[in-house]
């Protein structure tokens, strides 16, 4: 089922939680609402569910106006951040709840409920926990039971509020891959809220980046990561280095350094260049043009990659570079070394049009 969100606004007292949110979610899509805490993502999710009412704007389910439809009639499944399992009921009864509260005419028979609950327990691979209470389960198990409970009512839309937020790193990774596979199997339109960019990029078909109640960018994980439309998106999706400079006549000037470019428009006044840590090359020597001299301050190996913190020689701030283990090994860098940085790709945003330009450095 497709969801259309038209110009939705919501305030809590004087605080504007959502401003002019317009968003279309296609049938069967898995969409992530990504943003820092307080950006309004959970409010938006609760408005889609019908747990909050928007101050203005409308929500359309499958082209039909559902703005004033009660939560009960929206046929949504909602997985709460802290799962909200009924603590006095067994896992079985938790999942059966949605079926048992149906009006008598639509209520399935006891044997049918039994079959359905066990199907769902099998789906989330926890059939052996049917008689336990929520208090006896681990976080990952609770989360999967909460999902099974939400799916029991055969929702047209599945909404998940920080589904992996309360889990530890390993379980979180496993569960999000599992959720992705589950979605591919069930194809139910799903929206989940997260503040973790890695999670959004890995799991979602499309990512909606929110900031201070506004949509910053909507796009596939590749689009938002490779072509961030605003500086905020750039900052939020991964680490970034900032260089102040200018663009003129086919090259970028950063301090005393001149980087040759393959194209791009002029920013003669001033420009801020955004460069991801893995888009910078470290050269042992090569103090010519096109490189920025820096001194290594700190080296931190982080699993498969190595993070290097450098201080610019011209005292204009620090730079972070990410190398693979291999690259790092070949270069033989150590703390205190003087090296040269060569950005491979620079991005800059036009202050007026907020348009992004990517500038490729000339490979020499």
């Amino acid at each position, binding site marked *: 089922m497709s969801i259309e969100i038209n110009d939705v606004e919501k305030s809590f007292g004087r605080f504007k939680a959502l401003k002019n949110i317009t968003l279309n979610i296609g049938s069967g899509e898995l969409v992530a609402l990504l943003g820092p805490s307080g950006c309004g993502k959970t409010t938006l999710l609760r408005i889609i*569910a019908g*747990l909050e009412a928007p101050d203005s704007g409308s929500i359309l389910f499958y082209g039909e106006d559902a703005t004033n439809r009660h*939560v*009960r009639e929206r046929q*949504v*499944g*909602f997985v*709460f951040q*802290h799962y*909200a*399992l*009924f*603590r*006095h009921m067994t896992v079985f009864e938790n999942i059966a*709840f*949605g079926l048992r*509260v*149906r009006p008598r005419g639509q209520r399935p028979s006891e044997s049918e409920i039994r079959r359905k609950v066990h199907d769902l327990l099998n789906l989330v691979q926890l059939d052996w926990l049917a008689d336990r*209470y*929520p*208090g*006896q389960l681990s*976080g990952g198990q*609770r989360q999967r039971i909460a999902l099974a*409970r*939400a799916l*029991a*009512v055969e929702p047209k839309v599945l909404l998940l509020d920080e589904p992996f937020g*309360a*889990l*530890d790193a390993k379980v979180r990774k496993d569960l999000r891959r599992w959720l992705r596979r589950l979605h591919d199997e069930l194809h139910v339109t799903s929206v989940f809220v997260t503040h973790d960019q890695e999670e959004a990029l890995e799991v979602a078909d499309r990512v909606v980046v929110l900031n201070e109640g506004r949509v910053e960018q909507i796009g596939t994980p590749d689009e938002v990561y490779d072509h961030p439309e605003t500086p905020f998106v750039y900052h939020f999706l991964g680490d970034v280095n900032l260089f102040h400079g200018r663009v003129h006549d086919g090259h970028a000037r950063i301090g005393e350094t001149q980087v040759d470019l393959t194209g791009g428009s002029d920013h003669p006044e001033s420009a801020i260049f955004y460069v991801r840590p893995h888009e910078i090359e470290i050269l042992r020597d090569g103090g010519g043009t096109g490189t920025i001299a820096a001194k290594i301050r700190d080296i931190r190996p982080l699993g498969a990659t190595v993070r290097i913190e450098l201080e610019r020689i011209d005292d204009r701030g620090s730079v972070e570079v990410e190398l693979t283990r291999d690259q790092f090994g070949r270069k033989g860098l150590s703390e205190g070394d003087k090296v040269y940085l060569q950005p491979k790709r620079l991005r800059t945003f036009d202050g007026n049009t907020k348009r992004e330009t990517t500038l490729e450095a000339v490979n020499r």
Partner: protein
Amino acid sequence: MSSIALPSSISRTRTASRTNREPALVRWLLTALALAFLFGFLFLPLTVVFTQALGKGWAAYGAALIEPNALSAMWLTVLAAAIAVPLNLVFGIAAAWAIAKFEFPGKSLLMTLIDLPFSVSPVVSGLIYVLLFGLQGWLGPWLQEHDIKLIFAVPGIVLATIFVTFPFVARELVPLMQAQGTEEEEAAIVLGASGWQAFWRVTLPNVKWGLLYGVILCNARAMGEFGAVSVVSGHIRGMTNTIPLHVEILYNEYNSAAAFAVASVLALLALVTLAAKSILEWRIKQQTVDRS
């Protein structure tokens, strides 16, 4: 929630053990002091009640209990509690539900009002009813005209009992419901439950032990209340005397064996209440341990 609760509970026990390293002498002294206090103020009076009650033998004890005025007092006490407790149960749940699950103007005022019977002397609570419904009171003449008797009659006693005992259930439930939040109810509604179904299937089962605890305390107070009831009762023997009032009358007549015999019924009630309270506290603790 649980993954957060667990480490904090561990650290709590750790700090407790670290700070509990008082010298043995201090620990013994404090324990002895507490025990001596309990002995002097609780255990001793309780023994006195029972020895005095049985001072003239079992026969006199039994006679004092089945004497018509005593039976009538017991009946009235049970009646007042039987009306006051269910009413306060409903009121307490409604008030706690409103306070814990909704935001509305005047919420803090409501909470203050619920505490009012605790902060006002019971005698004053009784007097309020006399001033309202008594012969010289505001509504007295109107009531007399319509031949309705509230003060110095059973309805007055029931009213005073309700007033004095109404905070118990609400006070017990409000913090419990506030701690539980509204997520489970929201989950129930999203799953298609009506508000009524959410209440019966989710809210009520979650607070049942706390609720029972409140009811027991409420009942104990309803049966033991003296001050407010004394003011509105008029002390008519066999008519408007509850157990505590009957005890007082017997004692004032120097009939101490009978007075203590009837008092022992109240003392027994207190012991049963204490036992029930401990069992419930244990249950509630078990439940919270299960959940974390």
